[in-house]
């Protein structure tokens, strides 16, 4: 396949612009990132600075890869991270735009690499259960209904990639925050701190410069792990109603 890439380059000699690259020998069975590897190998051969992009597991689980492909975070395939996207999703002769995740709270570091440490700070503000090592009782002491455990898992499957933020016109992090709040609040072990947790995390989200949720639900559509917007509803209904009523989150 012949593919034309228009890649956002920023940093070094680039001020922030799309640069065009033509690739002649793209194979259908290549992953999108393998195609980027081939591009970079050719740039290095020409002694140019390769395109910076982040990746690690290449299995759709670590949440490191983060490109907007033709306007969609993680590209066109549903429930698929960029690293799991394959070139058979494109056609010979296609022109593809590749950009970083864009949000005020995710400043661009270079080219396609952004700083998502705001997510860490949100978790640090309350996204945990306060239990020290060695304090736990026997694992089977509290039975948890199978379905409840399964629902908690659905929320816990979030990989912290930030696509929800990049997809949202308000650059809100509500899907990410609500997934964590729901995961922990659904389990008996996490109920104790549930209210405090939700409030602290939403407060940090605001402080970090993420926008407010206005129910667009683009986040759910682009989330590679299909995290449901029901989590946002649960967050609002159960914990935030009283505190933020005047600010109207939903």
């Amino acid at each position, binding site marked *: 396949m012949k593919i034309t890439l228009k890649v956002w380059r920023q*940093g*070094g000699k680039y001020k922030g612009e799309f640069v065009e690259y033509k690739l002649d020998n793209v194979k259908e*069975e*290549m*992953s999108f*990132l*393998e195609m980027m*590897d*081939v591009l970079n*190998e050719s740039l*290095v051969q020409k*002694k140019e*600075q*390769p395109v*910076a992009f*982040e*990746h*690690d*597991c*290449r299995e759709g*689980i*670590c*949440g490191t890869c983060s490109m907007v492909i033709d306007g969609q975070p993680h590209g066109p395939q549903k429930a*698929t991270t960029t690293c*799991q996207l*394959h070139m*058979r999703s494109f056609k010979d002769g296609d022109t593809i735009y590749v950009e970083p995740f864009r949000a005020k709270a995710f400043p661009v570091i*270079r080219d396609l690499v952004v700083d*998502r*440490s705001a997510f*860490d700070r949100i*978790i640090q*503000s309350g*996204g*945990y*259960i306060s*239990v*020290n*090592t*060695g304090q*736990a*009782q*026997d*694992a*089977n002491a509290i*039975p*948890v*209904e*199978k379905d409840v*455990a*399964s629902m*908690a*898992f659905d929320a*816990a*499957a979030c*990989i*912290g990639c930030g696509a929800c933020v990049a997809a949202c016109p308000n650059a809100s992090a509500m899907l990410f925050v609500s997934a964590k709040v729901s995961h922990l609040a659904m*389990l008996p*072990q*996490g109920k104790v701190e549930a209210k405090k947790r939700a409030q602290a995390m939403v407060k940090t989200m605001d402080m970090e410069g993420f926008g407010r949720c206005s129910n667009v639900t683009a986040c759910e559509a682009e989330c590679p792990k299909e995290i449901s917007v029901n989590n946002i509803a649960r967050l609002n209904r159960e914990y935030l109603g009283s505190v933020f009523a005047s600010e109207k989150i939903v």
Partner: protein
Amino acid sequence: MKKLDAKIPEGALSSKWQQYKSSVSLVAPNNKRRLEVIVVGTGLAGASCASTLSELGYNVKVFTFHDSPRRAHSIAAQGGINAAKNYQNDGDSVYRLFYDTIKGGDYRSREANVHRLAEVSTSIIDQCVAQGVPFAREYGGLLENRSFGGVQVSRTFYARGQTGQQLLIGAYQSLSRQISTGGVKMYNRHEMLDLVIVDGKARGIIARNLLTGELERHAAHCVVLATGGYGNVFYLSTNAMNSNTSAAWRAHRRGAAFANPCFTQIHPTCIPVSGTYQSKLTLMSESLRNDGRVWVPKSQEDAKAIREGKKSPLDLSEEQRDYYLERIYPSFGNLVPRDVASRAAKYVCDEGRGLGETGLSVYLDFSDAINRLGKNVISARYGNLFEIYQKITGEDPYKVPMRIYPAVHYTMGGLWVDYNLETTVPGCFALGEANFSDHGANRLGASALMQGLADGYFVIPYTIGNFLAKEIRTPKIDTSLPEFEAAEKEVRDRINHLLSANGNQSVESFHRRLGLIMWDYCGMSRNADGLQKAIRMIRELREEFYRDAFVPGTNEEYNPELEKALRVADFMELGELMCIDALNREESCGGHFREEHQTEEGEALRNDEDYAYVAAWEFGGNPSEPILHKEELVFENVKLITRSYK
């Protein structure tokens, strides 16, 4: 280097750890506050260690090259985590888990460490559930188990196919809580490039800030390395792309012995390589072998015809197929252990009977199972795996047989540690996949997660006290000491050296070539000639690398190519040591198969008389002249027997 001393406590095997815990030196709370610990790595081992030490009151500084601690390679583990809970009442016990691990490791691990691992395994599950890890549950609400990797009990806990993710998120959240209390200072996007030793003790590291390129000096009373395995020395592996050996290797160059480097695990069920552009291999869970049948065509002609697209596998009759595992190993069939299945696949492909464009894959066929059980049952069991497979290959495994090939997956070797998890450098500890300690020559499925969390949550918090109790009068370590200055200069020189070569070949291409050498000569089976050849080739490649590699950009910026160059340089030294170790070990055991040492039927032949030892290599001043130290393994509680799967 002093003589190796494993510091195994006296007493009966089952009471060693209890006695150790009640007699180990403790550090008083007011003293803990004055002691600093550096932890490098935030995988299961590093995150669990750092959060626990901070909870205890130590001052902890944590480093990771990732943008967030949650991205560590542990996140990718799929299958599960073992623990001797005996919740299924099927006869499991601490002793049985201990025994299975020793036997699975082909009798090349240390009894006392493995027994401790089995003992603390049960507390891990308690801790993780308390953190909110959503393990699979039964209808009654209790935890569910499955069996894994050829053991006779169900002791594996799991969270769908994402156990590593859920365990790591649990540890990451505990770590986050400690960051918020100020007990942990977190350094993301920082890569450790050297260990600093002052008066014989590990007192700090040199780290490169990956955003600015600045070299930073960080000091502490001791240093814990939880930096993962070195499978990426093979270039292609199931490890995350950025996993590397540099932290461990740099510690090795500073005096930490490297143990059993040639013990690597090759997993039989991975998605085969599809082209030279490929940079990463994907694991398909081992569970597939429960229902899939492995085969290749009987004749080379048929295999060739299929490779060229002239025939389809569905055209071949039963008589034209060779279900080679069932043929050679009638009693275990498709369920032989990982190393046996991997080698058998290599042999049939070497005979020219492999499939796929490259000829390097075999079929894993579900048609019998689908006929017998129905598509629904198979889809309920393996649906998500089939989906992953289809995403990557574009083929539908319900219709055409899946293709698989072995790939490098895990490294049992690593930094030598004693019972305290301390390396041969006082004050430098190694946890998780970075150490060599528990898996001998072969790791059982679902035991790496267990070991990482055991080391971090339940072992190091005690054993580090043994070292730190003697340090309570040591003031804060000063980073302006000449040792820091010298180490920083060495790192700077290394970086400048790489940047100034200004050659013509990419770092990636060198890594790929190194990987091929390792795979061909130090992979699934090894022999003396091949290993000697590999050693020569690696030396030449290293020389060529420093002469002709091209690293774009400068040090003073975000520069992933420079990061890669530093890592590949270290892999090229480790690769040689692996070959030297494989050459030294004149026996076949676990993942290490020496062609010279096999039975008439082609099975591994262990040599307990001469090789029941841990090979701990000291750095000898240059990578080609390591010095061998032996830790003889003493088996007081298990009898050494030969594995047989016929």
